[in-house]
């Protein structure tokens, strides 16, 4: 564990990513306490430029809502959606991949055709259609992102399980008469953990991008302030008030970049043999 952290922090990008992510996390957790008012409330005159009135560091939007408060409340939405939808995608992808890799043969064929099918469908278009049909809410958004992002998990886990299944210790477990479920859960899956963690950290980043794109198109949860929504709402008045679109977009960029850097750092630290070429 100690060497893991040392390896991870020696990677400058990953260390930087961790710092940025920590800041976003603190903002998401503590921010709403500093800004207890709803970010939807109109608190000042509209189109207030940044740093003109004390207390309104990033200015106000077209309806006089505080951009800083929106950014802070939006951090929570982005992180929650990113995390929960990734967990949901893992919950779909890991069992499918594990079963395909473990049982092989026809089960493998059928499950992989199913996975390929989902991989062929244009994912963003499917997410749009799903959220539009189920009505925009945080649940439909998380569900739609999970449904479009599990196939890579299934493929990765299948590959790992396929090679682990042939290992002697797994054969031994089969011979000693353990059930398939027990073997998969206790003997095989723990050994697939590190590549899955790497993939998951990158998936959180993609999920945040997806959520912001959906919110930008007006498919966000109408009760939750999110970064994508802010960019979308500021779009029509961008010529008069650049700050309404610039800041939330930059927040998305920083968070996603941080997660990608951490993902690459994790990859180098957990799979030293597959470490990125230098």
């Amino acid at each position, binding site marked *: 564990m100690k060497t893991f952290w040392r390896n991870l922090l020696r990677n400058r990008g990953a260390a930087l990513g961790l710092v940025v992510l920590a800041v976003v996390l603190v903002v998401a957790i503590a921010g709403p306490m500093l800004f207890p008012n709803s970010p939807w409330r109109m608190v000042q005159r509209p189109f207030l430029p940044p740093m003109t009135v004390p207390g309104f560091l990033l200015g106000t939007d077209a309806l006089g809502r505080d951009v800083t408060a929106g950014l802070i409340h939006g951090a929570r939405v982005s992180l929650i959606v990113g995390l929960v939808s990734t967990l949901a995608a893992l919950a779909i992808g890991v069992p499918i991949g594990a079963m395909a890799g473990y049982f092989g043969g026809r089960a493998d064929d059928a499950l992989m055709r199913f996975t390929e099918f989902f991989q062929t469908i*244009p994912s963003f278009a499917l997410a749009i259609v799903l959220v539009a049909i189920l009505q925009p809410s945080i649940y439909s958004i998380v569900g739609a992102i999970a449904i479009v992002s599990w196939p890579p998990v299934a493929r990765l886990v299948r590959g790992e399980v396929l090679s682990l299944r042939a290992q002697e210790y797994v054969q031994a477990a089969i011979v000693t008469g353990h059930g398939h479920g027990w073997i998969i859960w206790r003997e095989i899956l723990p050994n697939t953990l590190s590549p899955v963690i790497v993939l998951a950290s990158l998936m959180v980043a993609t999920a945040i991008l997806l959520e912001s794109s959906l919110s930008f198109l007006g498919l966000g949860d109408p009760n939750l302030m999110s970064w994508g929504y802010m960019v979308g709402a500021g779009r029509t008045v961008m010529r008069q008030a650049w700050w309404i679109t610039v800041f939330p977009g930059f927040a*998305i960029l920083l968070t996603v970049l941080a997660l990608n850097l951490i993902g690459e750092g994790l990859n180098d630290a957990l799979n030293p043999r597959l470490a990125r070429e230098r």
Partner: protein
Amino acid sequence: MSFIVQRLVKMVVVLLAIVVLNFFLIRAAPGDPALVMAGEAGASDEIFVAQLRERFGLDQPLPVQLALYVKGIATLDLGFSFRQQMPVADLIFSRLPATLLLTLSAFAISLALGVLFGSLAARRAGSWSDTLITVVALVFYATPLFWVALMAVLVFSVTMGWLPAFGYETVGAGLTGVARLSDIAQHLVLPATTLGLFFMATYARMTRASMLQVSRLDFVKTARAKGLGEGVIQRRHVLRNALLPVVTLAGLQAGTLVGGAVLTETVFAWPGIGRLMYEALLQRDYNLLLGIFVVSSAMVLIFNLVTDLIYRLVDPRIEIKA
């Protein structure tokens, strides 16, 4: 030849599955379809609703409805958009050329620049230009597409005034011939470049990693031992083999390209099917929305088929049989 037939059969099966999925999604759309259609048409008395039910076969059992739906799609009948008072297929096909122009230009830009920058970075691995390319690619890879598009408008249209901010051509300019083409090209620059940036970053990263991997293989050593020039080795031996995973990735990215087109066309008011999807979304026009979904899925399938064929052409290990 049998390979192409096999791939075509597979493509048709997948398309059929997408159509079936689409059918159930339409049924899942909120409200009784007949009532929704009546509402969209602006009338909802009992007789009209019953007529609609009969006309669209909604009074039939589900399997019959499904068969009718598949049959409709096979004859390119994607239903009727009551909001726009036009058949869905007509709407989509009138917008298709603009989307093809945008996505194919973006694809060409991203592939050309991505491979160029990726191979540049790989050949000078560790230098400052490698670091610069890697960092820039990482940043573009993490930037929301719709935001890049808006920033591009802010910088290049609003502030600098170099390029038009939206649209396909100057409305009412009455240009013809070369003047019109150059007008369209000017409108195309910003949307195509922004759509291409994300993919350029992906291809650059992939090309770099893959070239570094290939350049350590034995056959490269052999080429060097034979006394071939470094340029020839990099181009003919390293790059050609390193491009294989890039082509695979390009095929897999087709769906993302379509998704990106929705965002880019929305920002730039580009009159393609992505913009049409946004309009359908605003009006909750489910028939149109799902029609676009089927057509864009079909586009992705065709694109996948093409990349598969290209893969076979560029892979030096696969012989193309006459």
